[in-house]
């Protein structure tokens, strides 16, 4: 077989349960070229690459290598065609050495003493691309950057000509990122084909030769990156110039509810991911935090709601210090939380709907008498809740996991709002929901604002942020790039700020002064 020179995907479509994840997608990558694949979460990038990797079969369309049609029906077939993938989350066995990991799935390993051959392979690739990998180290001893190199070598050893890299820099430090880019440059000159999935504009611009932009399952543009305006890229990714469609009256901003001061929070890996953030949220206000996920939003929200410890700084609600209090105490102080992963945090899937309708509130007087739960009142409350929040369900006596995602989300939002919280923290409340449910939930957030609640809205959906929020904070790598008013002329730069390319002048102090007198 001739080595891969070009790979084309032609008119690829793929639906899941009637939702078009990929809609007639075309793309092409050639030898010695890095193709950027740009798009927001849920734009269909991962689905498309999984088709290439043989995990999914397209509903229609075809894949061509060197102009010849090929069928890729399994990862193994993908490998045999010379396609290798480096996943965002590494697929390595932590307790095994580099050699052992590479030997896994290596089809041409000799039956006896494969170590030597694989070691030679590793060393030769290391030399060729100027890596630095110790083949005898265990994976857990390696940094994220080193693990990534192991993944790359794994793909190359198996003869990959096309390397798919899924958000490769999301786990790397800036230094590691620089090294990684050098490796990619070298591979390009070696004639390798590379597809780089990213939503970081800088990366795409600096590294890729061409870029294909996806939005909502469709290709919205192909472009050469040289001479391309980043602003143009951001607009393609996000979909349109910013317009407002929701009716939202100005409301007085007078009473401060949430006050966050210089908060730093550690991530799961133990290093800081929220790096000194300060902001306030007032009654009758929705403050949005915009940003690409993984920039510290989750940790910030968890710190505010008591699920994660704050390293330094302080958080207070209605003047009461709640820094590092238990989730229950914080909740009792008037904070409700619509969590990011609704199935993982928001409900106990096997319990009945009415049991989930009081999660977090079950200890309150209205639902319990001494040690016992008042199931009569709980069921009445649940009935009211599913009526008020239009939760579609055959009855309240069903296991909650049987509800659709949208209905589960309505239930959670309803539960949290029914509590009349002073502060409602909502993370990605409409993620993955259909248009109707999305519209409904957004209106509920606005209603809460009108009723005098303060709302902190974290979302990756810029439309949502722009439609709903009175002020918008843009987070990037654990810091706010700035806090904008919704009518700020600079709001068109939000896309750029999300990608970390532009830090606005620190003028939110001036903003605060303008509004708080």
């Amino acid at each position: 077989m001739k080595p891969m020179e070009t790979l084309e995907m032609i008119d690829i479509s793929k639906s899941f349960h009637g939702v078009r994840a990929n809609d007639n997608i075309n793309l092409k990558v050639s030898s010695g070229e890095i193709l950027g694949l740009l798009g927001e979460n849920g734009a269909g990038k991962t689905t498309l690459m999984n088709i290439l990797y043989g995990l999914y079969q397209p509903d229609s369309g075809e894949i061509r290598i060197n102009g010849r049609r090929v069928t890729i029906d399994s990862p193994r077939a993908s490998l045999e065609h010379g396609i290798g993938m480096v996943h965002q989350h590494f697929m390595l066995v932590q307790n095994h050495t580099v050699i052992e990991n590479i030997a896994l799935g290596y089809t041409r390993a000799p039956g006896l003493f494969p170590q030597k051959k694989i070691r030679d392979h590793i060393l030769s690739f290391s030399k060729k691309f100027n890596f630095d990998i110790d083949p005898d180290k265990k994976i857990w001893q390696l940094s994220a950057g080193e693990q990534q190199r192991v993944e790359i070598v794994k793909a190359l050893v198996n003869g990959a000509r096309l390397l798919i890299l899924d958000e490769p820099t999301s786990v790397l430090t800036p230094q590691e990122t620089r090294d990684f880019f050098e490796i990619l440059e070298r591979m390009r000159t070696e004639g390798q084909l590379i597809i780089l999935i990213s939503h970081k504009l800088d990366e795409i611009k600096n590294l890729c030769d061409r870029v294909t932009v996806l939005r909502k399952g469709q290709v919205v543009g192909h472009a050469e990156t040289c001479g391309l305006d980043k602003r143009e890229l951001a607009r393609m990714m996000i979909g349109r110039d910013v317009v407002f469609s929701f009716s939202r009256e100005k409301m007085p901003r007078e009473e401060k509810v949430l006050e966050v001061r210089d908060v730093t929070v550690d991530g799961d890996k133990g290093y800081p991911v929220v790096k000194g953030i300060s902001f306030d949220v007032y009654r009758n206000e929705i403050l949005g935090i915009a940003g690409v996920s993984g920039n510290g939003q989750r940790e910030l929200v968890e710190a505010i709601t008591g699920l994660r410890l704050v390293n330094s700084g302080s958080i207070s609600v209605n003047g009461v210090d709640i820094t590092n209090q238990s989730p229950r105490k914080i909740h009792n102080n008037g904070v409700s939380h619509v969590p990011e992963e609704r199935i993982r945090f928001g409900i106990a899937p096997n319990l009945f709907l009415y049991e989930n309708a009081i999660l977090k509130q079950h200890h309150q007087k209205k639902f319990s008498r001494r040690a016992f739960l008042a199931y009569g009142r709980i069921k009445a409350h649940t009935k009211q809740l599913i009526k008020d929040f239009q939760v579609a369900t055959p009855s309240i006596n069903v296991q909650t996991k049987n509800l659709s995602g949208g209905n589960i989300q309505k239930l959670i939002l309803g539960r949290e709002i029914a509590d009349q919280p002073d502060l409602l923290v909502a993370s990605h409340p409409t993620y993955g929901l259909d248009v109707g449910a999305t519209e409904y939930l957004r209106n509920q957030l606005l209603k809460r604002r009108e009723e005098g609640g303060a709302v902190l809205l974290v979302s990756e959906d810029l439309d949502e942020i722009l439609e709903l929020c009175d002020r918008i904070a843009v987070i990037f790598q654990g810091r706010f790039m700035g806090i904008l008013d919704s009518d700020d002329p600079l709001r068109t730069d939000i896309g750029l700020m999300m990608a970390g390319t532009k830090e606005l002048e620190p003028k939110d102090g001036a903003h605060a002064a303008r509004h708080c007198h």
Partner: protein
Amino acid sequence: MLRVTVTDREQISAAGTFFTLVLALAAGLLVIGGIFLCCGVDPLFAFKKIVSGSFGSLYGFKETITKAIPLILIGGGLAVAFKAKFWNIGAESQLLMGAIFGTWVGLNWGPALPGPVIVPLMFLAGFIGGALWGLISAVLKLRFAINEVISTLMLNYICAEFLTLLIVGPWKSPKKFGFPYTDDLPASAMLSLLPGSRIHTFTLILALVAMVVLTVMLFKSRFGYEVRVIGENPDAAKYAGIDFTRTTLLIMIISGGMAGMAGVGEVAGLHHYLSYPDTISSGYGFTAIIVAWLAKLNPCYVVFSAIFFAGILVGGDAIQISLGLPAATVDIFNGTLLIFLIMGDFFTKNRVRLLSKEKV
């Protein structure tokens, strides 16, 4: 080409649950029948012997109830722990620790106190003993993230050796002709039996009342709600502000304490002195795991599944004698049934279909 697909069942009907349960038991019995055949025993004859030995005669039935008592107590406690997905495999030693504590109270305070005072005290001491022993694993899990399956299992051996140490050492009675037994409990500390049987009524009533209390607690109380949320989704429990540490400790106090009371019942009702661990408990702590499982972790159903498995224990004794099968037969019997019950669970929760590959 055929291919198997597994999808979540949306609705789990009571009839479906019952049907798979019966099917699982039937399939289990079929395999056990095969094992009997391999041993050169007619399986139908063996099953008949088991049933007639356990439920078919008055004597057998009374023995079955006797053995069901500890199984009910332990099974109910385990149901609570398992509901929270705390895998307590150490009920066997929690029972022994309860027996040790209860016996100490009986031996030392019994002579001075009347029955109505000393008996509740012994059960209380047994509850505390079993709870403390169970708490070790809970603390290890909470403080050092040590898997509770390992710690509860290993503590079984430690406790058994500890009991052996007591009866050959400091607690050994001078009046027992050199046998490693403790003194007999004083008369006031012995439980009265239902005439003509070995059923210690106090423990039986205690067990039945406890099951009602546990059921109400699990399904009606705030604590039970928190237990179930933790079991179903620990992340949601944390999000909901449920105190994981406090709840886990309470669960193991209940679970261990119930087993501890079973231990007191066995000593005060049947043996009247401490002896070797496998005399005090013939594996009740392990059998109760299956009891709790068959009862779908509902303490009320535990009563019935405990009687069922007690019947197998008694019937197992019967076939040992009449068919000359080894004592391990009952263990094989129980183990096989447990495996099939767990497999049945899978079919209750999932819809498994065979599809031809083209249609996928």
